[in-house]
């Protein structure tokens, strides 16, 4: 374990040195948060160059491991590149499932589109029986809820749990952030309340906090969801919509990640908002996440397989009951 972190530290030092040589607007913010081993090392320079595989291995054999992809369904070269790199990462970090944070299929949604924009690029993953769990984005037809490989159970919002012996369970909440009805809000409230001592992770398309120049934070949605998240002690949120990677400084104790750059890219779109812990908008990206006991380890990698962010944090204590 110690040697692994030494490696990370060395990599961080090298990349941060490179980052220091870059113009300041291109330099990632690299402030540590509460994590014991956070090593944000995003850089524009780090994204380019030849393909590599900086994927960090999991820390535990009994951990829960998953990948996060966002805004994927273009059917174009970048999506295929990221998919191939993700599969390469699986050799080092054998993730057990993948969450999709929306915009799973851009444009037309004929059978051949499902193939070209999902089934073909992720064929090795699907062939390995690694399930995907999708949330709907603003480009997605609602009928995707019936597509078997999205595992949505015919619902626009749904929950599922992953657990392993020796680890606390992880309860996931896939929400439809396009259309936040009272029914859905009531459901979120009820399901979060019922999820007990599990880790609680939500994923949906629109980021509640974002430094994106195109969209920015979804304030309306935040006003509706955040009180529920705080009341019930949600731990982390994964979103997309913005076509880049951003790890935000914890907002009211909750960790927010934007991972919408897994096929599309909005280069240079991250503004200086003061909310960014690490941002990466120089190339496409994806995330790998591991939950080992009370620690969540995360890493973000570029299309070329470069590590652009990594770190970990301890599960927040549950909110005190009134």
């Amino acid at each position: 374990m110690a040697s692994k972190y030494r490696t990370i530290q060395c990599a961080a030092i090298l990349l941060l040195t490179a980052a220091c040589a870059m113009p300041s607007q291109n330099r990632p913010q690299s402030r540590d948060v509460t994590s014991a081993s956070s090593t944000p090392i995003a850089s524009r320079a780090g994204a380019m160059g030849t393909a590599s595989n900086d994927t960090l291995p999991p820390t535990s054999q009994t951990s829960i491991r998953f990948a996060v992809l966002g805004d994927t369904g273009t059917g174009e070269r970048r999506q295929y590149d990221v998919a191939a790199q993700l599969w390469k990462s699986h050799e080092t970090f054998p993730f057990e499932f993948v969450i999709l944070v929306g915009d799973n299929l851009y444009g037309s949604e004929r059978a051949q589109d499902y193939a070209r924009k999902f089934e073909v690029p992720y064929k090795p993953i699907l062939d390995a029986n690694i399930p995907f769990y999708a949330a709907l984005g603003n480009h997605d037809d609602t009928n995707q809820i019936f597509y078997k490989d999205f595992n949505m159970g015919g619902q626009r919002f749904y929950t599922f749990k992953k657990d392993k012996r020796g680890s606390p369970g992880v309860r996931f909440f896939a929400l439809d952030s396009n259309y936040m009805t009272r029914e859905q809000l009531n459901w979120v409230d009820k399901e979060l309340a019922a999820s007990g001592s599990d880790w609680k992770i939500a994923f949906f398309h629109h980021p509640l906090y974002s430094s994106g120049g195109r969209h920015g934070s979804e304030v309306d949605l935040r006003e509706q969801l955040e009180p529920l998240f705080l009341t019930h002690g949600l731990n982390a949120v994964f979103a997309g919509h913005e076509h880049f990677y951003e790890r935000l400084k914890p907002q009211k104790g909750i960790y927010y990640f934007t991972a919408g750059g897994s096929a599309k890219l909005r280069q240079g779109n991250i503004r200086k908002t003061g909310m960014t812990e690490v941002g990466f908008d120089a190339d496409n990206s994806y995330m790998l996440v591991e939950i080992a006991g009370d620690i969540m380890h995360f890493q973000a990698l570029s299309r070329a397989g470069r590590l652009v962010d990594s770190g970990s944090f301890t599960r927040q204590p549950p909110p005190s009951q009134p």
Partner: protein
Amino acid sequence: MAYPPTVMVALVVGFVACASPQESAAQAPKSVPTTQNPPRANTVNAYGAATKAFLDRVQEYMIFHNNVEKMVPPLTEGSHPEEITKRGMALGAMLVKQRPEAREGDFFIEEYRAYLIKIIQEDFAKRPMADRKALLVDMPKDVKIGVNMVYPPVLPLATFPANLLKALPELPKVLEYRIVGQHLILRDVTGNIIIDVLRNVIPIPK
């Protein structure tokens, strides 16, 4: 026997609703809301009556929709993409075919429009211009909309502002409000059909 206050309110509302003209629902062909003879807002709570009339039409539409759904093969989890696509198109076509006389105002009836516009205006009055402009970012340009038209399946749907949605009467799962340009539409989700349009009510820059 004394009724709790909530029951009394429900009884009064029910009585008022029954006493208000409801010819439209009675005269309309089964399951097909029309714009004829909308209820007059001559009750104590005009907005309440108008909202009720709107929701009655929605309810009526749901009966219609559910009947039409039975005419196309059902979707289940695990459906093949080809089935999903074909079924969506078939349902949309059938919904249009079974409601050929549908027109604007079938649901957003005149009395209800004023209420709806008031809700929208009050919501947007709280929004800064930047927020209004942000709504435009994902909104497809130059989309032709009209009743019984298919919402272009290749175009995204603008995310509906969550606070505004909370202020509007709740719809069944099959229906949703959406904003297209400066217009509010009512959309059948599973058939992807526009079933009503309220034009030029969204105060966002053109």
